[in-house]
């Protein structure tokens, strides 16, 4: 190991709505941190993210390990030649228990899904994830904010100005939205409706996602929706406890991936391809296999026109390159 080099670990969390990345040093201090919208183009976002990260990192820092997580973790892992590709549940748990070793519950609400992770003595022991519906997740809140013409940053704050409690039907986006419109037509103040929506989201989360889980303190609230003070307050009302939003709540998944990368490369050399891959053409394309009526959608990733990965087939005909 060259003494002059600073050690860095890269973690990337590519979700459906946003792409997050961090570089941490060997003591897990954050050197660089970036957050941007995925906008349906993960390859573009990953490249952009890498460019931004590399500009924040000084030249002496060398990446000793890279990890990816999030729904596009596989794609990101292949592009980066990451040392570890881990799903977001574990990544969030790892980061949470690093910053708050006494945390027992992690509430994570992201763009498309919500999760609860139960930790005991810093080890993830149980989790649950919503499976049926996207109501109560970041994209739904975004949509409602746009519909009401309120910037998303102010959306949660408006809920705190509510004077009355209003009930909004919670589970399904369709029901919730039509209920909100209905209530608005009755002349109820927007603030009250937003506050009602926050309560509905929390109620739905506790009944569907966190059902049967023992929610013990300390409770952390991570993911994009944690920025929403209205939802946070609604959680505090419902659980009658303080909820902690970690400083880096937006990038906790990425931090977890970076920590995992450190674990994975312990005394091994990294496979990481370097920040330069931001300039290499990557392409991802899908086709429907016609081998059987299953018609699996196979997804290929190409690096400089060469196929480097295929997945999505059930039978293994394509994924065995």
């Amino acid at each position, binding site marked *: 190991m060259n003494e002059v080099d600073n050690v860095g670990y890269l973690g990337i969390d590519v979700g459906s709505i946003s792409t997050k990345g961090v570089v941490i040093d060997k003591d897990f201090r954050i050197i660089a941190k970036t957050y941007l919208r995925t906008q349906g183009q993960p390859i573009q976002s990953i490249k952009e993210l890498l460019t931004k990260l590399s500009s924040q990192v000084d030249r002496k820092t060398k990446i000793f390990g890279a990890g990816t997580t999030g729904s596009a973790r596989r794609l990101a892992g292949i592009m980066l030649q990451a040392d570890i590709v881990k799903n977001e549940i574990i990544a969030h748990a790892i980061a949470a228990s690093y910053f708050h070793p006494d945390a027992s519950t992690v509430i994570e609400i992201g763009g498309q899904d919500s999760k609860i992770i139960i930790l005991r003595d810093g080890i993830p022991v149980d989790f649950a994830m919503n499976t049926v519906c996207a109501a109560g997740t970041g994209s739904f809140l975004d949509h409602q904010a746009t519909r009401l013409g309120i910037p998303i940053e102010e959306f949660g704050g408006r809920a705190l100005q509510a004077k009355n409690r209003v*009930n909004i*039907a*919670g*589970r*399904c986006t369709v*029901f919730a939205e*039509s*209920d909100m419109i*209905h209530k608005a037509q009755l002349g109820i103040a927007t603030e009250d409706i937003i506050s009602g929506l926050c309560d509905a989201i929390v*109620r739905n989360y*506790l*009944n*569907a996602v*966190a*059902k*049967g889980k023992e929610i013990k303190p300390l409770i952390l609230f991570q993911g994009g929706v944690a920025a929403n003070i209205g939802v946070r307050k609604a959680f505090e009302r419902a659980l009658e406890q303080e909820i902690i939003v970690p400083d880096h709540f937006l990038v906790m998944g990425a931090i977890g991936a970076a920590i995992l990368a450190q674990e994975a490369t312990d005394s091994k050399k990294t496979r990481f391809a370097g920040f330069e891959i931001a300039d290499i053409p990557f392409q991802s394309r899908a086709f429907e296999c016609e081998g059987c009526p299953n018609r699996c959608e196979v997804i290929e990733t190409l690096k400089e026109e060469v196929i480097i990965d295929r997945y999505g087939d059930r039978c293994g005909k394509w994924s065995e390159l």
Partner: protein
Amino acid sequence: MKVGIPRALLYYRYGNFWNRFFSELGVEVILSPKTDKTILEKGLGKVSSEVCLPIKVICGHIEELKDKVDFVFLPRLVYLGDKLYACPKMIGIVDIVGLNFSALLRPKIKNDFFLPHFQVGLALTHNPMKSFLAYQRAKEELKFSKTIPDFPSDQPKIGLISHFYNLGDDFIAHDIIATFRKNGFLIYTKEDLPPTILENSKGFAGKIRWIYERELYNAFNYYLDKIDGICNIISFGCGPDSLVGEIMADKAKTLNRPFLQLIIDEHTGRAGLITRLEAFIELVKKRIVAN
């Protein structure tokens, strides 16, 4: 000594019997209040989100009672008559509640009502004579003798085909019943029919081994050609209804009778529900005029 009875599920059929039985025993009964939003919410987190609304409702009622009584009375109806079963969830929910709450009185009813209730009486009063007499006196409340209802020809008539624990619970069915009433409809339910009709075991009804589902199907068949339309209310996640409801829908369609299937759960928005009902009511009224 206070015994709590949840106002849900079987209460809507055997409530009178139980009230009488406990009052004859000299035991104070605390009945949970009518279902409301708070009660439902207490029940929601207690049981898997996939189960039907009535099960979530009863869990809420039990939560409501827990701290106020010495025992909660939660009978388990396994079967009646010739092994006609209650639904799996009605049987299982007793154990599920029992997993985390032990002050339960759970008589197991397998056709015979006497022994399980006698045992409950004995456990509460330690007096065999009193328990025996309490059952004997309350027994008459178990008779559900009804006469066949009238079908006046000058009024629109609607059959509400649903379980008694759905129709009896204002929180679940009030809006539906009120909408039909407001539009001048006479309402017929399976509870209005005598046992001779409900217990018919000929045809497909005989093949249904779920006791209340057989009653529903028989009531549906009986009303089909006597009234103007059928509204079948199913709670989402109800297994037996998903099956028999499909068969009823098919039969009504084949015979060209107005038939509306409403699927309800705790998220059902009131506005949407009433819109659908009003459209159906218009349709039924138009048919009456045309005929």
